[in-house]
């Protein structure tokens, strides 16, 4: 697999949200607007890239039996870094995302990549893998956020596209499930054709 494929596979073929169906809690919980989705995706990507690099560097030092707890500690440290940085520099976004920032620790995408990729490959490839999967996750979250924001309040990234109130339900909890469900149908249809 060449370097470019490592980055692009996360977008469609191994898209963490639509193809692998991982990390559903932040996907549904934080995408009330495109900007929130983007912020959550970026925070996750940051943790994913750094934890992938560190885990691939220390993989030979960690005994096999305690590798999962060790991975979790590494991931949790980077999550704390992100948490403190966001609280300092983007307090508004930090307040909106709330409990989902510390919950990046239990996002199955990150532990999944650590176990499946970073613990078997070198640091550079792991960084690219983290970047690719992270980009895929960020894109899915931004798209879902944009759809919900457009239907729910008639704007994208805060810019109004049409007048009126929109369908409030899409900003609330049920709209998250329904919007993601239909986006997944579209994704399945498109990828089934290209095969």
């Amino acid at each position, binding site marked *: 697999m060449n370097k470019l494929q490592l980055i692009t596979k996360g977008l469609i073929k191994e898209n963490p949200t639509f193809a692998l*169906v*991982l990390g*559903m*809690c932040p996907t*549904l*919980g934080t995408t009330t607007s495109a900007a929130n989705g983007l912020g959550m995706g970026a925070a996750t990507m940051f943790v994913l890239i750094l934890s992938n690099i560190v885990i691939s560097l220390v993989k030979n030092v960690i005994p096999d039996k305690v590798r999962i*707890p060790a991975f*979790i*500690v590494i991931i*949790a*440290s980077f*999550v*704390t870094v992100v*948490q*403190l940085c966001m609280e300092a520099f983007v307090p508004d976004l930090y307040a909106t995302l709330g*409990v989902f920032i*510390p*919950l990046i*620790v*239990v*996002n*199955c995408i990150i*532990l999944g990549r650590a176990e499946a990729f970073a613990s078997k490959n070198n640091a550079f490839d792991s960084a690219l893998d983290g970047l690719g999967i992270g980009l895929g996750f960020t894109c899915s979250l931004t798209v879902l956020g944009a759809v919900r924001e457009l239907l729910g309040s008639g704007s994208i990234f805060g810019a109004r596209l049409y007048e009126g109130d929109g369908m409030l*339900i899409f900003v*609330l*909890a*049920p*709209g*998250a*499930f*329904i919007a*993601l*469900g*239909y986006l*997944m*149908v579209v994704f*399945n*249809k498109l990828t*089934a054709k290209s095969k």
Partner: protein
Amino acid sequence: MEYFVIVIGAIFVNNVVLSQFLGICPFLGVSNKVETSLGMGAAVTFVMAITAVVAYILQHCVLVKYNIEYMQTIVFILVIAALVQMVEIILKKMSPSLYQALGIFLPLITTNCAVLGVAILIAQKNFNLLESVVYAVSLAIGFSLALVLFAGIRERLELDDMPKAMKGVPIALITAGILAMAFMGFSGLV
């Protein structure tokens, strides 16, 4: 009265799965049969109650006391992982029949974000010890309720005819959306 508000609020109004989006992975993963979802619900309730006590003690006797609240995420996740492991070992020795019933679900709970979520929420909400336990158990009951309801619907959904692209996760998500809409009817209750 105060406890009543916490219980109703956590089970129906702010249902952990359908309105707070915690624990979606087991919600979509093990909700194919009513029987397995009952087992998962029981295991989560058990672990959540213990987590609430431990998280409360850690938060007030360690993190706040020594001024190291920023270590919260790391401490909580390690303690939960160890706790689940310990519960598994103790159950195996003390009550083999309960272990048989809950056994396979216990390892899955470590990665259930509802458990870490409840620990963090309790720390944020400034509950006292009894309130924390009541809150955690109510959240877990809400989780089990949503899981069992959803499993009942999904058992029937298996037999239905639908476009190929909708099979599996997409239709499950849309169903969950409609279920969440039904739960919104409770929102005026508290």
